[in-house]
């Protein structure tokens, strides 16, 4: 150990230097926070400003009047690519794609994780390694195989096809999460249950699942936001009325006319961003807790 006396500027400096340092810290952090939050604020403000006002004062300005017309238009009447139904159909598409894909991939992940942590077999570690490779595999690698599979199954340009793609693509994540979490559940519990006469599924239902809420919350949040925000597969495998909202947002900016409907676009983007944001606000706490907490105290 080198003997360097600990020097704490906040503790040793005078009052002025101390408050100056504090102001500096808050200023820097404030700038960064604003940097990340500003786009969201601009979008929210614009979604409530009438279009003429935006045209007059530019994109970045305080609203002089609050109007909900843009939201209404974006939701149900705005015309994209010839149909005038707004984003509602695409929003429901996204929900119909994200909810089943999240539930199914999480369920498979839990069972996979249970097997790979508590019922290991010859080659199970190798299998797990292969599955986690899917976590790091860029999505575009799977584009052509999926096109082939969806084509053969007759699922091209259907919400069902996207559910299948996201379920399978997501299983590597959910398996990784659940398996690592279940490792912290003592093997003795499984042994005791086996002696108690419980089988594979009974142990899963009665012992593993009741211990799982923290990690299930993590995987559900992860999968939901990931699938909802996913763009590549949505654009490639769906079109028009079948598109999820992320893909449909492109159509919004290329709707043929020269008028840029910034108010409607802002509202539409916010509609598309709302579910993940809500999940973050209500579940973020559990997400952090689930990632850091073990199974058995």
């Amino acid at each position, binding site marked *: 150990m080198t003997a360097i006396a600990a020097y704490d500027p906040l503790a040793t400096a005078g009052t002025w230097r101390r408050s100056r340092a504090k102001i500096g810290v808050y200023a820097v952090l404030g700038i960064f926070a604003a940097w990340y939050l500003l786009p969201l604020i601009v979008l929210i403000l614009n979604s409530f400003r009438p279009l003429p006002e935006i045209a007059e004062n530019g994109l970045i300005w305080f609203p002089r009047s609050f109007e909900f017309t843009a939201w209404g238009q974006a939701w149900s009447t705005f015309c994209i690519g010839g149909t005038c139904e707004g984003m509602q159909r695409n929003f429901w598409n996204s929900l119909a794609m994200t909810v089943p894909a999240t539930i199914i991939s999480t369920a498979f992940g839990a069972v996979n994780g249970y097997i790979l942590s508590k019922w290991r077999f010859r080659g199970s570690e190798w299998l797990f390694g292969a599955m986690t490779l899917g976590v790091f595999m860029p999505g575009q690698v799977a584009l052509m195989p999926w096109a082939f599979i969806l084509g053969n199954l007759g699922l091209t340009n259907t919400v069902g096809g996207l559910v299948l793609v996201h379920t399978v693509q997501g299983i590597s994540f959910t398996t990784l999460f659940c398996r690592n979490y279940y490792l912290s559940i*003592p093997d*003795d*519990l499984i*042994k*005791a*249950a*086996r*002696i*108690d*006469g*419980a089988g594979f599924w*009974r142990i899963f239902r*009665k*012992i593993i699942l*009741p*211990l799982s809420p923290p990690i299930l919350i993590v995987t559900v949040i992860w999968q939901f936001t990931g699938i909802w925000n996913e763009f590549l597969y949505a654009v490639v495998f769906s079109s028009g009325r079948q598109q999820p909202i992320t893909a449909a947002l492109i159509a919004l900016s290329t709707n043929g006319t020269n008028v840029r409907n910034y108010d409607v676009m802002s509202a539409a983007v916010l509609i598309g961003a709302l579910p993940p944001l809500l999940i973050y606000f209500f579940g973020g706490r559990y997400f952090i807790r689930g990632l850091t907490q073990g199974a*058995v*105290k």
Partner: protein
Amino acid sequence: MASLTVRNLSKSYGAVEVLKGIDLEAQTGEFVVLVGPSGCGKSTLLAMIAGLETITSGEIAIGGRVVNNVPPKDRDIAMVFQSYALYPTMTVRQNITFGMESRGVPRAEQDAAVKRVSALLKIDQLLNRKPSQLSGGQRQRVAMGRALVRDPLLFLFDEPLSNLDAKLRVEMRTEIKKLYKTLGKTTVYVTHDQVEAMTLASRIAVMHQGRLQQFAEPHTVYERPANMFVAGFMGSPSMNFLPAETVAGETGPMLALLNGKGRTLLPLPAATADRIGPGRKVVLGVRPEHLTRPDPGRPPKAALGRIDVQVEVVEPTGAETIVVVKVGDREVVARFEPDSAPREGETAALAVDMGRACLFDPETERLI
């Protein structure tokens, strides 16, 4: 009748052989303790009896039925784990009834069984609590309750007391003994604690490096250990080992200590003397309590030897005093009543009870 028979049992993980040709049996109603240092294979053996580990070769029979390929739930066993393995999300009552529910035991029968066991173990107040709300001792009781509720052919205990603090451990040890006396169930109990083994067992199986070293009643294991490992492992402080040689004395064969300096002659017990001739190298094993102050009031026994020692360290524990002495260049530990213990730095003459000493072969380390 034998409730448990283990025949020529071996276990390998790849090239590593962790159990080598184990032969063991527990008569009905017997309390067999598997004891040994960590890594000796005792827990693996128990897991194999429970059916939680596969058998590489050999045979295990429970109640006369070979169970090599029978799953744990059909072996008619119950097990208490070192970690207690209580289901954390269930109440104490649910923990106890989980096994019966898995087996489809009717509700009324379950309730009666819970009542019986919780009264026996004094856990009736805890039935609606979760394991996380229990103390270590209470968890231990619940874990035993979960095993007792089954009334199986064979009870298996895997180091059940090692997670408890010292005081509680002694209390629970007595409780287990009482419980065993009440129920009289065949039990196999794994521990690394030789005191637990001595106090609880009808028979002790001492294991080391995957082999069974000795399988006998506690007093036999203590008084006539089969080899130097067993002699050193059982008893605390450990048995003293002194290199020696048999020589021809004036009145018959004697034992000469090879301690580097001087020549100490000790009498050989007649029974031993007949078996070994003079001029043979041996290891003399003497337990700390068999070294005493010579009592001038009592006539010396024939097999009482005398050695001169230099007192090095005196460690009073209250009930007894442990004294480390030097015999020539060897350190020897002796155990005294606090009143009769020698003082540090003193030169003393100690009597060695040769009638209870053990002789070992220095090559094979076996008891002669």
